[in-house]
């Protein structure tokens, strides 16, 4: 095996096309996970035991099974199920699969944020006669969410790195393109190196940015919770 700079240069624009698919898919999955995360929080707060246990159990199940299995299930097995079976295009299947998988993580992040809000905040809002919706909107969420932003950011990076799983169900992103190139010319080292470099180029600066966010919010939150 020899390393060829020519191949390396050649393959960059090819992989670059897939970069946008990877980034787009990451953003789509992430938005889905962020929004759907609230669904689990909401369901686990329903004051009726059987319902919130059921949903907690489902979330736990999704969290403890590999995302790859879930992707395969949604893409290959779901269409085969009678009545509710639907055939999805690979991109949609990936958003659904990874989005749902990671929503079980974001919901835990939200939950920790919500639980970190002092009980006295709920009581003061009751004493001021706020409705349940007003408590959430004006008092609890504005305090619960900001300190979780760094954690949510970390999940963005983790997700970015999990998105290549989607190539297994045929989403043509970076990894898929690199594989195709390898199969065609029997050159794997260069294209896969380019894929790795692109990932590094995006995730390392993001990690630095999130580290800074983390410092900023930790400081702010410390100051605020010191005394209410």
């Amino acid at each position: 095996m020899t390393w060829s700079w020519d191949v390396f240069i050649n393959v960059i624009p090819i992989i670059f096309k897939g970069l946008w698919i990877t980034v787009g898919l990451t953003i789509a999955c992430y938005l889905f996970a962020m929004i759907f995360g609230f669904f689990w929080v909401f369901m686990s707060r329903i004051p009726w035991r059987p319902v919130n246990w059921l949903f907690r159990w489902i979330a736990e199940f999704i969290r403890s099974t590999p995302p790859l299995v879930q992707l395969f299930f949604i893409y290959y097995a779901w269409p085969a199920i009678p009545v509710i079976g639907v055939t999805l295009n690979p991109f949609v299947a990936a958003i659904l699969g990874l989005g749902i998988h990671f929503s079980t993580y974001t919901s835990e992040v939200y939950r920790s944020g919500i639980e970190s809000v002092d009980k006295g905040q709920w009581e003061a809002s009751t004493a001021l006669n706020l409705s349940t919706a007003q408590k959430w909107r004006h008092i609890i969420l504005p305090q619960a969410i900001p300190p979780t932003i760094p954690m949510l950011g970390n999940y963005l990076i983790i997700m970015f790195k999990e998105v290549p799983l989607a190539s297994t169900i045929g989403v043509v992103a970076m990894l898929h393109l690199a594989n195709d190139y390898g199969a065609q010319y029997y050159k794997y080292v260069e294209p896969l190196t380019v894929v790795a470099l692109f990932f590094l180029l995006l995730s390392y600066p993001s990690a630095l940015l999130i580290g800074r966010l983390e410092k900023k919010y930790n400081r702010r939150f410390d100051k605020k919770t010191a005394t209410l």
Partner: protein
Amino acid sequence: MEEPIVQYKNIRKSFGDVEVLKGINLDIMPGEKVALIGPSGSGKTTIIRLLMTLEQPTGGIIEVNGENLWLMQNKKNELVEADDKHLRKIRGDIGMVFQHFNLFPHMTILENCMLAPTIVKKKDKADVKKTALEMLDKVGLSDKVDLYPSQLSGGQKQRVAMARALMMRPKVMLFDEVTSALDPELVGEVLEVIRDLAKAGDMAMILVTHEMDFALDIADRVLFLNEGTIEEEGHPTEILVNPKSERLKDFLTRFTNSR
């Protein structure tokens, strides 16, 4: 004859196996200032938390303006557990100041005071702001309105908390050991504000307090609670100067000794 604004009728409250209130009967008249004293664990705080709907009684009835707080009549005229709408209607007459202030840390002092009148009572924002500024001026904080709670001292926070509660114009105001979390030198400024409120008159006040001199000074009536029952009640001088029951005498001696 004037009707009481708040009535507790044989109120009981248990937390798990522990019964903290064992049948409380208590009438509060409009404008009356009542001080609750007693050893810790005697149930004083629970009494006012029940009225603020922060806890639900295990037995008995609480009425506000003659209306049942925790039970309501449904369409078929049956008594059922109060829903949120019912609670919110009655709760509008009650305000509370907490031991640990519970200001909203993500809002400025002014925003803390303006929030509830604007979103709960849906009053005009400009009017609310005017009232809030007056109210903050009354508690001596007109130069702090744009600061955040974390930038204030404990005494200042507690004065904001009072202004915030007063913005809702409650007919009954509850004070839950409002000076207990303060440094000793900051207690005076908070008591001063409460004293002014008491003198202003028309609002009924229930104070859970360890400040005996203060209770003696502003209360119309003092209640001594012990192990979940009202052990003794009467005019402040009667209770604090000439206690009858052994337990109250004990409590007061221990209290003066510990100071």
